[in-house]
């Protein structure tokens, strides 16, 4: 079983048939393996960490692929968890959530960005160590984020194992080497909500396929 974890880009938002044409399904086809797509809309990395821990201890996990969300999403909770981020559309939020989003927008500044980015990098380091500790095959990449590595994060990037982080080939703090889903899908059609459509998913699946074969995780 291949477990794929991420946000709406992994879920396949805005695709006509996400079960068939989202990148996790395409990767499954390449390796003739069943896939569990744990991509969910509007989730942040806190949720992605939780789902990855579940996958890390799943006996049938042959490969785990993590598509990190933007580091600028913060998880809150009432009855169920949900993510809020600065500048988000507040139309579909309740008044309380919209107020939190406005607060996050107000407080949004360089220091806040740095804190959130470093927090995400620690999550990357923790998850890599967990998966290595559990002897799990894995790879990861960034789905989408507005920026590349920002100054003040080099120390943590040096603790990230770039071999398993597609798009972050060593030297890890070289901004020119930073790539994500957005780069790989450049020029491909997008839906009205900004999500890349079928062609982009195919391109990303090809890239993942090549990466996994180079790692010799699966044949």
């Amino acid at each position: 079983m291949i477990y794929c974890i991420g946000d709406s880009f992994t879920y396949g938002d805005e695709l006509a048939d996400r079960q068939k044409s989202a990148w996790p399904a395409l990767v499954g086809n390449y390796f003739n393996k069943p896939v569990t797509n744990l991509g969910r809309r509007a989730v942040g990395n806190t949720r992605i960490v939780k789902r990855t821990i579940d996958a890390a201890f799943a006996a049938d996990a042959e490969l785990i692929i993590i598509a990190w969300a933007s580091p600028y999403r913060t998880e809150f909770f009432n009855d169920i968890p949900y993510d809020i981020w600065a500048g988000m559309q507040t139309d579909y939020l309740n008044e309380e959530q919209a107020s939190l989003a406005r607060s996050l927008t107000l407080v949004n500044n360089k220091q806040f960005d740095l804190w959130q980015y470093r927090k995400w990098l620690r999550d990357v380091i923790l998850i890599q160590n967990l998966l290595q500790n559990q002897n799990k095959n894995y790879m990861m990449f960034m789905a989408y984020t507005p920026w590349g590595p920002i100054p003040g994060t080099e120390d943590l990037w040096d603790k990230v194992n770039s071999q398993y982080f597609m798009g972050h080939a060593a030297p890890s703090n070289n901004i020119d080497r930073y790539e994500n889903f957005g780069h790989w899908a450049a020029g491909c059609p997008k839906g009205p909500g900004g999500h890349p459509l079928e062609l982009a998913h195919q391109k990303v699946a090809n890239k993942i396929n090549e990466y996994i074969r180079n790692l010799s995780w699966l044949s």
Partner: protein
Amino acid sequence: MKILTVGDSFTFGEELEDRNNAWPFQLGELLDAEVVNMAKPGSGNKRMIRYVIDYVATVERPDLVVVGWSSPGRMEFADEDGFFDLWPGYSGRMFMNEQPWRVELLNYMDRHHNEKYLYKQYLLDVILLQSFLEQQNIQYVMLRTVGNEFYHNAYYKETKPTADLINTKTYLGWPTQGMAEWTQGCARGPGGHFLDDGHNRIANKILKHIQG
């Protein structure tokens, strides 16, 4: 030998006349080791994880890490004035009038305190930090400020699959004992923190665990 300790006020040594008597330093004496005590009063668990990873990434690799986990109800945030932890009923509200964003967060936490969510998050944090330290070949001991009995009993069924993933050999007192229980009968300050004698007991408890 270098020991890194992280924790909240009980690891910091709050209310001690001399913070050099806090259990991290007493443990350092017992083990003839240098101690870096990064505990902070009011610290939540995310801050402790932050300190450990950043220390290993930017300073050096310690020989032993001792984590004095705090209440799962504390959440860490940051803004232009720095890092801060908040929890339901936080009593520093009066200092936050100039920071409406912090007040907004605190009010929200008061209204939506979800113990089960926070407890599960804490269990996952324990699992992640244990894996990190094991993978980095750093010896470690974990313990809690207050025993886990309430959360363990209240959410036993829902959290058992997660709790079962914890390496309990390295978690002193798991699942129900902690510093508060081990220091029963010891003198306490007006703020409820155990004093020198209590710190001595904790240091010896950890030493026995390490040597055992």
